[in-house]
């Protein structure tokens, strides 16, 4: 059994190359069927996303998987890894499993730790199963890859930190308030960015949204979007004590919220914390507002700084994840090795047992019946002999499992003991 992964990703190929190689969802079953029907191919999976195209095949030992995939790509995409040259990567055997585990765990993604790739990989696997292109061996490898990805996600913080500005705002809100249910959001200035942030907050449980805007129509429009309440722009500061989170993105050329005003607001709130997000340029909220106790003011640069820190933190977590993946690959290889020689070992043991049982029966007919003591002695003697005989070949099989010459050893032993294929 040979395993080969051939592919291009955002790391090796520009989008012009990736788009040429991509398989559309509707063409996938036909492509899988074609690949599977090629001589020597046992199983096949095709993963096609905007950031990577990967073809995974397993073939019989006698076939050359590279040549098969080359000709397949030449037929379908008018390009072959030979001609595609530096854009393509190929991983075989252990390397291929390592690569697959890393991809599933989102360690090879453009934004390390992003969760979509696992879903895409699962979809590719499901498509291959439906097309009948996976049976048994790759099943085990892919299922393992999914659980490795799950383990990485739960045991490292790789996917926990926000890596976009609007999501970072939500994450900060959670760091301030804990769960966001029953939190009220006020949007000052109905722009695209504030809409996005409010959408994230609403989805995270924020219960109510107030919208205020210099043009009242726009405020009404946006309030409808979130089932919120429009507020008169001239009177919005009176409503501020109600708001836990304020998103300011108005086009005002000066500060619309000053420190003295906010001191009054926070007193009216009896010091309950407030989170102010100022994504306007020029800024809407006087920066010294952040000096007030229980008020947390973040402008667009502050949010970007949080994103950068999160990315650095993700990279640290990725190191743990890499170690985890390496450990899992080791485990998988040990399991595969055992699975490779297991049928031969079982066959050998059965064969010897049959011979033993037949010989004992023959002796029984000739010299029997035996007394229970004699019966026991014959059993022990014959079992001892076959165990001694089997010991050599079995330990030879185990030590050669997974090695290149392993296949020869297996073949030789099967032949020597007349084991059926």
């Amino acid at each position, binding site marked *: 059994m040979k395993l080969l992964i051939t592919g291009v990703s955002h790391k090796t190929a520009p989008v012009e190359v990736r788009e040429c190689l991509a398989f559309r969802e509707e063409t996938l079953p036909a492509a899988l069927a074609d690949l599977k029907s090629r001589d020597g191919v046992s199983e096949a999976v095709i993963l096609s996303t905007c950031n990577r195209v990967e073809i995974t095949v397993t073939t019989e030992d006698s076939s050359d998987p590279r040549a098969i995939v080359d000709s397949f790509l030449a037929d379908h995409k008018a390009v072959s890894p030979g001609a595609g040259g530096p854009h393509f990567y190929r991983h075989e055997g252990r390397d291929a499993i390592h690569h697959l585990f890393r991809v599933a765990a989102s360690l090879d993604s453009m934004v390390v730790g992003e969760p979509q790739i696992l879903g895409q990989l699962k979809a590719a696997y499901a498509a291959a199963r439906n097309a009948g292109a996976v049976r048994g061996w790759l099943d085990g490898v892919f299922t393992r890859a999914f659980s490795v990805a799950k383990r990485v996600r739960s045991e490292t913080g790789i996917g926990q930190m926000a890596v976009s500005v609007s999501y970072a705002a939500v994450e900060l809100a959670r760091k301030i308030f804990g769960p966001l249910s029953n939190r009220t959001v006020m949007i000052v200035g109905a722009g695209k960015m504030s809409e996005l942030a409010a959408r994230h907050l609403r989805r995270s449980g924020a219960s109510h949204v107030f919208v205020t805007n210099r043009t009242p129509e726009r405020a009404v429009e946006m309030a409808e979007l979130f089932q919120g309440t429009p507020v008169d722009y001239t009177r919005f500061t009176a409503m501020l004590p109600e708001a836990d989170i304020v998103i300011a993105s108005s086009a005002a050329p000066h500060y619309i919220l000053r420190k003295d005003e906010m001191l009054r607001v926070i007193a009216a709130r009896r010091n309950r914390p407030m989170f102010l997000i100022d994504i306007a340029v020029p800024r809407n909220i006087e920066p010294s507002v952040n000096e007030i106790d229980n008020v*947390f003011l973040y402008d667009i640069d502050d949010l970007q700084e*949080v994103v950068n*820190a999160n990315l650095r933190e993700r990279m640290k977590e990725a190191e743990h994840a890499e170690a985890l993946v390496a450990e899992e690959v080791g485990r998988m290889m040990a399991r595969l090795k055992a699975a490779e020689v297991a049928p031969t070992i079982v066959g050998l043991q059965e064969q010897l047992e049959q011979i033993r049982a037949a010989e004992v029966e023959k002796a029984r007919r000739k010299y029997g019946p035996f007394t229970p003591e004699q019966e026991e002695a014959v059993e022990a003697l014959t079992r001892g002999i076959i165990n001694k005989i089997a010991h050599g070949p079995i330990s030879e099989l185990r030590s050669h499992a997974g090695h290149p010459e392993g296949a020869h050893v297996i073949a030789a032993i099967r032949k020597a003991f007349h084991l059926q294929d």
Partner: protein
Amino acid sequence: MAEMSVIWLRVAAVLYSLGLLHAILTLVRRREHLFDVALGAFGLGSVFHFVSIIEEGIVNHRWPITNFYETLSMCAFLIAVLYLLVHWRYKVESLSVFLFPLVFVMALVATLGNPVSAWSSPVVRDTWLTVHIVLVLLGYAALLFTAVASVVYLFQERELKAKKPRKFYYRLPPLGTLDDLISKSMAVGFVLITLAVIAGSTWAFVELKTAWIQQPKIVISFFTWGVYLALVCLRITAGWRGRKAAIMTVTLVGFSAITWAAHARLGSLLLK
């Protein structure tokens, strides 16, 4: 104090205790649930309190402000009346959180002026003292928990203010969660310490007769309880969080340690 006067004062203290319950519920739920009931009980309690003071004056044929217990009772009564007047005029619910428990404890202490007969049995005496000690220790545990949570809150608040996430930011729980924990542990601690103060002072009263109130450790205990009450009150009314709350909680831990040190010989009393 005259016997009937003490009985009326006890009735008043029981009614005032609803005010304490109101304060605790406000701290935990952050909303005034029991205020109307507590205010009614408080008003009724002050009527009984008034009766108690008049009775004391009539029986003794003098103004009932001649000893510590009488003056304490009078003082508590005046606070109660003053609060009722101010509330009638200005509707100041928030003050109740501080004043209701205070008036309750003052009235309670004032009832403990007449020596009662000695312990019915040594078992009751020892059990009573053990209950007091266990309550105090549980209360201290809750208080320490509050202090630790307050300090953690302070760290996380600093991180969020500094806007440059470092290790603490990622590892510490959200401020809202900590705040909730602080409220709850503070309320539990306050209940336990208040019960412990009641148990301890009544024990000391039976044990030491009228001299109990002169004991320095009892004075320190009441002072520490007063600080705790002030902390609870500031948290409810002014929403003290972060730095101020952390400093105050840690100060309270300090006072509690002093109180503990003053009581360190209490264990030996059990062996007496």
